[in-house]
């Protein structure tokens, strides 16, 4: 059984390449013929995750794993971590700087948006170390 695993490094505060990993992932899933509805949800979650890495972390990576039944998207970073995950998950809560908000990011819906779009969502964070997110998207048959 073929399983594809791809890693996409994402650099902190690199707005030049921000969004490229998500675009590549989307293109790949379209070529595989994944259901458009699943791609749309994954695209939204994936872009949020990528932008979070750019804005909030000190750098990290997105990992995509493809199985015949589902797509797993992981986001792992080195960074400040999240002290209160429940608070961070609430819509509208954001620690993004004014500079970042000026660019149209950091509206504080990222994590909630990810959780809403994924079929399974798990988040682990250690303050001062970093954050790991795992999202699973079931592929409709």
């Amino acid at each position: 059984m073929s399983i594809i695993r791809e890693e996409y490094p994402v650099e902190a505060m690199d707005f030049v390449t921000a969004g490229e990993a998500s675009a590549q992932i989307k293109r790949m899933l379209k070529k595989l013929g994944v259901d458009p509805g699943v791609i749309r949800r994954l695209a939204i979650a994936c872009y949020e995750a990528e932008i979070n890495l750019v804005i909030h972390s000190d750098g990290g990576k997105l990992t995509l794993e493809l199985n015949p039944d589902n797509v797993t998207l992981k986001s792992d970073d080195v960074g400040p971590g999240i002290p209160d995950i429940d608070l961070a998950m609430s819509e509208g809560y954001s620690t993004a700087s004014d500079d970042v908000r000026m660019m149209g990011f950091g509206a504080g819906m990222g994590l909630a948006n990810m959780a809403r779009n994924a079929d399974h969502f798990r988040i682990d964070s250690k303050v001062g170390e970093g954050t790991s997110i795992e999202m699973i998207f079931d592929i409709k048959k």
Partner: protein
Amino acid sequence: MAAVNLHSVKLDKGKCVGCTGCLKRCPTEAIRIRKGRATIIDELCIDCGECIRVCQQHAKIAVTDPLSAINRFKYKIALPAPALFGQFKKLKDVNSIARGLLRMGFSYVFDVSRGADIASRAIMEKLKNPNCPRPLISSACPAVLRLIQIRFPELLDNVVDVRSPMEIAASAARKEFCEKNNVPSEDVGCFFITPCAAKATAIRNPIGHTKSAVDGAISIIEIYGLLSSQLRRDKTGDEDGFDRTHSGSALGIGWARSGGESLAIEADEALAVDGIENVSKVLEEIENDRLPDLKYFEGLACDGGCVGGPIVFENVYIARNRIRKLVVDLPKEKISDAVTLEEVKALGNDVCFDKPIDPIEAMKLDQDFKEALKKMDQIEEVRKKLPGLDCGSCGSPTCQALAEDIVRGFARELDCLFLLKQKVADMAKQMVEVSELTRE
């Protein structure tokens, strides 16, 4: 699967030199150079006309109807695109174009800007529905619709189900003409005077409805010479045949420029984007949910909008500026004053779509997901061997595309000049080794 071989961009094999001009510019990577000539992959082509524009040899041709095609019908209706108004210097007034077309042999002229007025009103009604998808996406540009079918199928539900101004104009013109003159519909031919080839395709293969009300498309460049000589002879106040025309409002004519549609429909959160690459990028943003406040998206494949079409005469910036000036001089009339809801309703089913727009699965590697995964793996293996220069010498637009072509069975590894060079070097080395070993 949409019908193939219906495209309006064709290759003149005698002129094509097999260079990489069109190959590198095609936004959907639909072109390959095979056996020294460009070929178009039908499923991927969106008729945007970029290849027509960039080909230095003029080997890419737009397939439209000749002017003589109007003689198939007893009564001939001209449907001039709003973009036509930007083609001529010093237009005396908007009606001079209609007068010129009548002198050229048309029986009636119905400006597509009037169709745009009606489409605007219909779209405004759709926007009033609080449950309409956000953003609603304009259905005016057939190349953009085809791009969405291929690359952004999940956004198809956002496309506003109102037919293009061209279609609405044709239905309204036919109805009006037949009623006025008491003639049967089959005696009437409607011909769009088009700035682009995508419209010709949309007539043969409509998107969102079963049958087109238009009978043919004649390019602006085809009639340019004849019409300009008519315009030179045109006299202000020469109202001959004036009752045989129907024109649109300033806002309807404004549809010729990028942003004109958004202006006409008075959407407070609208975004107009022109140029197919730009449209692609913003659709990506919409797909990523980056524009949650957006209510209306107007995307036009050509730079500047329809005035920048590949088969017009005038430079896009000059034409765009003329349209701007023309619109400023015309009476200010809101769409709600130009078109009543009764007028929209009178056209019945000819205003909205009668079927959903289906996705075109041209990107899929395989119908079976496991097979597709396997192929994706193979593509990655092949791609690693390729130099990553995207030179196009192999005939595929990028190394990634060549890797896919190889796995799909349309190309070979040795089509890559760098792999071929390596192979020749290896063989030469082996020959030397053999000759060393066998030296007596």
